[in-house]
């Protein structure tokens, strides 16, 4: 059911419920009439709950779809964050390589291999 139709239906259900509540307050109603009003009122409650739950669920479903799309962006972000960490570790590796090279030069010179 479209949202506009659902809201219109809800408004009609509420009008009917209010009318029943007023009718229930009338003096001189027979026991049968009271029961019929109680039953009608309860049916309208059920209908109201059904319409409300449909409306809320439909809106939450839209939000879930939006969230799924944002999740895709989040997944790409996560991959990029990992990539950035890897790039940082490359800087780290380069630094270690330079330090290692300096050690080799020092060792070589101690053995007279480097003048």
């Amino acid at each position: 059911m479209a949202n506009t139709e659902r809201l219109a239906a809800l408004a009609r259900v509420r009008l009917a419920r209010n009318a029943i509540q007023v009718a229930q307050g009338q003096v001189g109603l027979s026991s049968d009439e009271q029961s019929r009003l109680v039953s009608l009122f309860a049916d309208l409650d059920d209908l109201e709950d059904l319409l409300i739950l449909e409306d809320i669920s439909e809106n939450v479903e839209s939000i879930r779809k939006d969230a799924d799309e944002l999740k895709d962006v989040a997944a790409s972000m996560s991959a990029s964050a990992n990539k950035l960490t890897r790039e940082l570790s490359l800087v780290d590796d380069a630094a270690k390589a330079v330090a290692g090279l300096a050690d080799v030069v020092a060792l070589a010179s101690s053995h007279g291999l480097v003048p």
Partner: protein
Amino acid sequence: MVALVAVLAAVTGCGAVLTKPQASAIQDFAQANDTFVKLPATVLRSYEEVHLETRMFDATTVGTRDAPRAVTQLMRAIEFSQQLEKVAVQLDAATEVLSQYAALLRKLSSDVVGGVDATATDLGRALDQSIGSYNQVLGGSATPLPSVGSAAAAAARAVGGLYTKHRQLAYLREFVAQADPLVTRLTSDVGVLLGAFVGAEGYLGADAMSIQATLTAYASSHGVALTVSDVHLFGEALRKEVLAAKLADDVRTTSTKLAKAHAALKGVLDPRPSLVSARSELQVLITELQAAAQVKAKLDSTNRTNQCTKE
């Protein structure tokens, strides 16, 4: 100095790097986002409580003969609450993505350069040690090599730091721009959902009307003055409804402001940022969130008081 700048520019590929104010704006947005995430489902849960009480009150006007039907209705009301809770859980899971997004924004804008500092310092120390050993081996036979460790460390720190900050900004620009229409749509849909709870014709307003009508019917059906306890119960239910409606309205307004704050954040990361405007959008958002959190706290305290009274 000019040569150093040229080398750095060549290494980083561009002069644009993530600045401290940009990183702070991201942190502020992420924090506001985290506060917002749980609020939409809280509105659903508050409504669920108010609605269940409304249905309980409905049962008070039913005569003895119709008691079985009243019991059936109460069971259905409980079932409705359970179904609504399931939807609230789904909503929580959906809005949680905003939290994940905020966490990644934090990660991408965090001060990873600290790691480069440590690496650069290690590099400088290792170089100096090696040069020291080399000079020792040479003895006095040749001109000793100067200790260049600190200079090398500074260079590594500068290049590594600028490179990282440049990459961070590039990623952030790309993802914030990609996420912006999605955040706008998501917050707009949250606004539509919560709009149904607000106003006299909204779900909560309708329940308030129903409680008032039931109070009248209850008073006339019993034919005696209402007890203090009766008045207290009806009054508390109405108070809860007013608070829940305020919460719904506050969170709805906040969802719009969250979208605006995100758009402003996108502006901050743009080549020509408007930081002042983004900061003021964020300040507005934070104020709204504080207001919503206060209403939620009031509702929680009402619920706790009621729980204590029941016990």
